[in-house]
């Protein structure tokens, strides 16, 4: 008997008392009624608690905000699906010379990503209650690696993508896409339980929440 058959056989044998399959009571909260302003406020509170930097902007002001955030950075990476118009202000300053784009057929290598100072991505959905932003590798978010290797992640969250609680967010996601759930910058409490932001993931997380 091969290992697969043998293990399945052992498990069936272990269950020969035919235990009942219980109904799962889903009496926990599965939806909520918070309005957009409350959602933004809650998400901001949680993200700040995680030591992320949060900027709340009207859509028209985002290019200006990005230009300011990118001021100190050298080169920065973006995924090909991110709206180029977001960088109009930054381009006005440097002609787009600092920007590198990860696109199908023009993949940035890990070494190239290691040399950029920041990455700018969109996001799929956010959970206000837990301060979580989910990336699902859509074209405006890119491959998982691009939001991982650069030391600074500037993440754009649209207000309409913010949900109050986790069950609401999961209903908007396709579980089979590669996902990264991000709740603040990377952190460790491994030495005497003292929390230190920034180990292997991006050490700085800037979140731009876009109203409307």
């Amino acid at each position: 008997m091969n290992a697969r058959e043998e293990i399945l056989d052992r498990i069936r044998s272990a269950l020969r008392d035919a235990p009942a399959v219980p109904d799962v009571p889903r009496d926990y909260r599965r939806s909520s009624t918070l309005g957009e302003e409350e959602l933004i406020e809650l998400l901001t509170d949680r993200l700040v608690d995680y030591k992320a930097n949060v900027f709340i902007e009207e859509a028209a002001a985002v290019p200006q905000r990005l230009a300011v955030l990118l001021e100190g950075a050298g080169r920065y990476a973006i995924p090909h699906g991110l709206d180029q118009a977001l960088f109009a202000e930054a381009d006005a300053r440097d002609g787009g010379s600092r920007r590198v784009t990860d696109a199908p057929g023009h993949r940035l290598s890990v070494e190239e990503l290691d040399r950029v100072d920041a990455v700018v991505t969109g996001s799929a959905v956010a959970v206000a209650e837990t301060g979580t932003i989910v990336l699902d590798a859509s074209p405006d978010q890119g491959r998982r690696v691009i939001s991982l290797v650069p030391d600074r992640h500037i993440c754009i969250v649209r207000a309409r993508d913010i949900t109050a609680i986790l069950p609401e967010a999961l209903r908007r996601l396709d579980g089979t896409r590669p996902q990264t759930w991000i709740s603040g910058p990377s952190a460790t409490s491994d030495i005497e339980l003292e929390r230190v932001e920034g180990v292997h993931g991006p050490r700085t997380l800037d979140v731009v929440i876009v109203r409307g």
Partner: protein
Amino acid sequence: MSGTFLGMPSLPVFGIGNLHEHEPFPKAARRELGNTQLRANLGHATRTIRDKRLAVVSELPDWEELREAGRAIKESVMARLPELLEQFEANFTARGGTIHWARDAGEANAIVASLIREQGADEVVKVKSMATQEIGLNEYLEEQGIAAFETDLAELIVQLDHDKPSHILVPAIHKNRSQVRDIFLREMEGVDPELTNEPARLAAAARAHLRRKFLSAKVAVSGANFALADSGTLAVVESEGNGRMCLTLPETLITVMGVEKLLPAWEDLEVFMQLLPRSSTGERMNPYTSLWTGVTPDDGPQNVHLVLLDNGRSAALADEMGRSALHCIRCSACMNVCPVYERTGGHAYGSTYPGPIGAILSPLLTGITAEENNSLPYASSLCGACYDACPVKINIPDILVHLRGEDVDSKRGKRGKRGRERLPSQMDLGMKAASWALSSGKNLGLVEKALPLGRIAAGPDKKITKLPGIAAGWTQSRDIPAPPAQSFRQWWDKEHRAPAAPTDPTGTGDAGTGNAGTGSAGTEENP
């Protein structure tokens, strides 16, 4: 689809690997208690995490409903395990992943090593995984000439120091910052000799040390927190980003996971991803969670494997009273609330799985008669704090009591359900004597006649400090007061035989019950 089991029931096949207590728990515990650094660090850690957990748990109005859903989901997973495993396998395979089944630790290790060799690699990066620790993968790979680099900061500290983790969540909690600095200075190639003991500087040193490894690694090995049967998706929950590095950068990803980690469907994740972070680190959410489903073209590892591990899990499942131990999501909440664990630390449990859950899971996986694992179910005061804290409501105290019964059965002449033939033990003889004494008032009266003998044994300080035989266990950490000159029954007889004796029992009970009370030394609490 799997049908009902119709074949011959097979005997449970137990697990092997790092699952054993190598000496009786009380002995290991006594040694660990002498380590004052460990006790101070652990006390601080468990208190801090406990408080954080309470704060974030009380924030949720539906915590109890989430726990109840979590318990029911896990119970249904166990009841439907064969069917869910087949469903998971079909989905994971359809999306380009490869599944391997491992009956035990040895088989799992061999599979992983051969997958690494196929890639022509002689080193791998690893993200913290209890399953690979359970099977002793790192040691095995080392023998095979393959270097395994732990990338979780605490695991790195422990590995560099050639030590063992002491806590499943913060494995290096027994080391303070200066000890960590010394380990880094001694073991880390190219480390800044000016390194201070500031945690931020130490974390930065670990980042620099591992960065090259991550960026050049060909193969990564991981565990998994959850596996979704309806889609073939795997999930890893972490903090530092080392998990993301391992799961994203190398071309080949090998995951080792126990068969019990399945969840039926996507919507079940909403329950467990609320329960786990709050119970574990006391955070609303952990910094990073990664989900992947087989192979995604152009994104992440293109050569994706999963080793499904039995190693005693089917044996644990066969124990109707104990099978719910497999519901464990390894959050470590039960450890942080356990008064025994808080003092002894994780090393005293011998196994990869310490604390209350380890005290039931290790003997369930290995069988109660394996090495010294029969001492583990006694490593508890049965206070019930673990049950209250457990996010999936595993009734650990009940299972502890059940396993104590299994232990006693296994030592008895009568064949224990999971034990083997033995001669009647001291315990059996003692129990027999007690059952004779307690079976009639006459018998008990005869025994009570011997009370004054106990007073002689106790000596002038009226304390018995050492009992003989198996009863010595009782006096190891406490004295027994000398028995009273007469028993309550003898006193009652004397008081009530005379016709003139008053009939109000409360009026006369004081002196008498006081006496009788000291007689039953077993109920006395000790500091």
